[in-house]
């Protein structure tokens, strides 16, 4: 029997506001800051202190919820989620439970099968926990250190419906969400800094069935790679169990990256009872409709809309459009370039951005904003290419130098004398000279070894240091060779 996976994702995204969710502590880079330097009595859970809602975090959350086309609750409620752990200073996490900020949204995803919308169940605000570091001394003593810098950082939980049916879709959804968060300026998307974390609910069922199978929850997936591998592993594991007629246990799983397998953390019986109840320290979160409208009006063009526009307006392929809009800054670079040179074909510019620039960024580690060649500089170069003043090879070399030195195309081309010889007169003399200097090859050619045409082409090109306009040169060479042929026959 064939099995089909059904997957829902819970995405935890830090909101990169200046201060934490419920106190004035700064939100710092958890991988850089000295432990416990961004901590106050509130986020350390000291006795008698109280949370105060960070309005900017609510605004960020609303941006995301609106971009996901959610219904916004004008009244939502914070609740306490109770459990003991040393990284949870109060012994409870302030989260939203029964009455979340937003519900019933959608996010378009693009896969090899085309475009499809994934339903969003809910979007709610909560606070992050601290971080534990487990230490083993050379003597074998073990202990754990608590860093509360991250405790109380605003966290947005985005829960999808079980609407994903393959690893490819899981990846597409996760990437689309990351792109969206970055577009909205609420999250850096730096996965290695743990600012986005995933939990996947995975079940499988016989293909074609409409019922859901027993699901497991895989926790703490902190990279796309871990997410994809863990989900793939679970699909495979559950399908195998089902095909062997064995039941699936409902449980919470962890992901063992080193051994590439999931492992059981808690069975259903051991599941936590979080004893949620409304947070008495916070009044209901009231969001005025005027504010919602203001935030909606201020949303940037979203990735999927921009992608459609790039396909329609610039004639790009869906793949190229996806690659360009994947990052807001790249899309903006591209579009600035297109607008700066209306007579250049947009697809040509796309090819250069996706080819040469992406290769450079991969190699150098620079972001598009850090490039020494901005969009205007790029199209200036491409205009030389388009007009035939330089050829493709020269253009690539010039771009490389622009990226290295920050010089402009005109200066580099002029100072190096890289301009192409497009002058038919000049090339005519050169072709004639090469043919005259190589009578033996001319004879072979005339006897039928026509591939020698390429050799003559190369000789002329070498004579001008590669700067000949290839179209003009080819035409001139063909003309002179045809002339010789005609003379021979006559």
């Amino acid at each position: 029997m064939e099995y089909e996976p059904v997957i829902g994702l819970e995405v935890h995204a830090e909101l990169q506001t200046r201060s934490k969710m419920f106190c004035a502590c700064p939100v710092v880079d958890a991988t850089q800051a000295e432990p416990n330097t961004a901590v106050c009595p509130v986020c350390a859970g000291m006795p008698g202190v109280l949370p105060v809602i960070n309005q900017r975090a609510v605004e960020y959350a609303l941006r995301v919820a609106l971009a996901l086309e959610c219904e916004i609750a004008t009244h939502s409620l914070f609740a306490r989620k109770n459990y003991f752990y040393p990284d949870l200073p109060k012994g409870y996490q302030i989260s939203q439970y029964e009455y979340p900020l937003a519900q019933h949204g959608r996010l378009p995803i693009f896969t090899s099968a085309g475009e499809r919308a994934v339903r969003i169940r809910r979007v709610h605000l909560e606070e992050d926990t601290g971080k534990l570091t487990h230490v083993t001394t050379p003597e074998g003593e073990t202990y754990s250190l608590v860093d509360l810098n991250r405790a109380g950082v605003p966290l947005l939980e985005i829960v999808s419906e079980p609407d994903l049916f393959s690893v490819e879709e899981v990846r597409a959804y996760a990437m689309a969400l990351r792109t969206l968060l970055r577009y909205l300026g609420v999250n850096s998307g730096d996965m290695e800094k743990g600012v986005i974390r995933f939990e996947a609910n995975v079940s499988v069922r016989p293909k074609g069935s409409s019922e859901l199978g027993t699901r497991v929850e895989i926790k703490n997936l902190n990279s796309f790679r871990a997410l994809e591998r863990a989900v793939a592993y679970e699909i495979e594991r559950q399908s195998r169990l089902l095909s062997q007629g064995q039941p699936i246990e409902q449980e919470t799983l962890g992901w063992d990256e080193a051994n590439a397998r999931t492992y059981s953390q808690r069975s259903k019986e051991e599941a936590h009872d979080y004893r949620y109840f409304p947070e008495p320290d916070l009044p209901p979160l009231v969001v005025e409709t005027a504010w919602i409208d203001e935030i909606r009006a201020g949303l940037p063009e979203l990735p999927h809309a921009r992608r459609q526009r790039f396909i329609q307006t610039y004639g790009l392929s869906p793949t190229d459009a996806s690659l360009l809009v994947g990052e807001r800054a790249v899309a903006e670079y591209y579009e600035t370039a297109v607008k700066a040179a209306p007579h250049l074909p947009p697809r040509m510019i796309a090819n250069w951005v996706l080819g040469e620039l992406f290769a450079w960024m991969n190699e150098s580690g620079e972001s598009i904003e850090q490039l020494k060649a901005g969009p205007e500089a790029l199209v200036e170069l491409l205009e030389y290419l388009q007009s035939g003043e330089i050829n493709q090879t020269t253009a690539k070399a010039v771009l490389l130098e622009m990226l290295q030195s920050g010089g402009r195309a005109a200066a580099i081309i002029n100072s190096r004398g890289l301009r192409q010889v497009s002058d038919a007169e000049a090339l005519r003399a050169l072709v004639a000279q090469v043919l005259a200097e190589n009578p033996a090859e001319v004879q072979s050619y005339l006897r039928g070894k026509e591939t020698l045409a390429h050799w003559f082409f190369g000789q002329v090109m070498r004579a001008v240091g590669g700067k000949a306009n290839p179209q003009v040169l080819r035409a001139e060479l063909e003309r002179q060779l045809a002339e010789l042929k005609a003379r021979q026959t006559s």
Partner: protein
Amino acid sequence: MTALTDLTVHQALEALAQGQVSSLDLTRACLAQIERLEPVLHAFITLTPERALAQAEAADARRAAARHHPDEPLPPLLGLPIAVKDILALEGVRCTCGSRILETFVPPYTATAVQRLLDAGVVVVGKTNTDEFAMGSSTENSAYGPTRNPWDTERVPGGSSGGSAAAVAARMVPAALGTDTGGSVRQPASFCGVSGIKPTYGRVSRYGLVAYGSSLDTAGAFARNVADVALLFHLMAGHDPLDSTTLDVPVPPIELPAEPDLRGLRVGVPREYFIGGLQPEVEQAVRQAIAVLEALGASVHEVSLPHTEYALPVYYLIAPAEASANLARYDGVRYGLRVESDALWEMFRRTRGQGFGAEVKRRIMLGTYALSAGYYEAYYGQAQKVRTLIKRDFEVAFEQVDVIAAPVAPTTAFRLGEHTEDPLAMYLEDVFTLPTNLAGVPGLAFPVGLDGRGLPIGMQLMGPHFREEVLFRVAHAYQQVTDWHLRKPPLL
């Protein structure tokens, strides 16, 4: 001449303003009185004499300097010694909450209610005894030993703010701060023959008030008359950006007329508060006090608060539920007591097992149970619904009357140990004070008599949300024509 410790807040401030006494004089007198009576009463957990004397000296210096600038107003309570319940944080002074688990905890912040009084110039002489985490009605649940009632040292001062009430009654300080979650200001005020306010929920900031039942906790004040209490209350009240549950509503000045006149005032008497189990002398004294209000021009009306009988079970579901979460932070990881173990969960267990007393553990378990999956709706959920009905009772009643007058507690002060073996009997002590906390309305307790044993009897006035000034006005009129608030414990 009156002893310095006999001065009320208003008298002390007047004497300070006139230059008749210095803050140092007053503070030293308080410290001397504490030194004399503390071995008997044990009203304090921590005394801060050096700090107090330094504050007093600074206050005197400021007052002296101000003589050259008569136009600049001085802080209204400049140089006034007070005591603070050890549930309210004071930066740099340990805050035990009557618990072993916080024996060494020194907060790096000050409760807003305390800070506002510090800004108004008070001198803090120490932190007063309390039932552990304010859970109790007798101050016997303190890990630091019980406080005794100045009127009869074999009896409890009430609780949980028993230390503050006893300190004010024993003239150790002219005023003190307390907290009231289910009656913890009013019941000890009643037992100790002093006046005490439980403000409207949301009127005084809870920032720095160590949480017990967050939706019920309020910070209040004690003094020997309601005019003094009103002065402190007015300075403590008002919106605090650090407490999102405080309301941003103006705090009207409290006008206490020179002439007692209650014409036009409608006083409600709730029939559900005059029930079996009420000590006859208590009922008699309260009814007499109501008659005094009537004699001053008020009209008296019987009202009904029909859901009163459910207040006790509702309170003992909601408060412990909130407490079970509020007290989860005491895990030995970051501050306070830690009982070491090699294993994390064992460290949690030992720390909490040894750090908390029996009553706290009882309420944590009650609350955890009430919130558990499968029981939530039947207990916590149901309690919240009934709480709404109790709130509604008051709303309906306050459409008919301006204030409600009732006994504070069914009895006068009981003996130490009398209820310690029977938690339920102890819980019943709060039966008349709990509804106010559940409804969030203000309550003001003040003495209206003595029973046959010479123990104080208290009455409480309850009012609509944010109408504390009415309670003060009525009680002040009462105190202008009676002298119960002037009585002194025989110990003195």
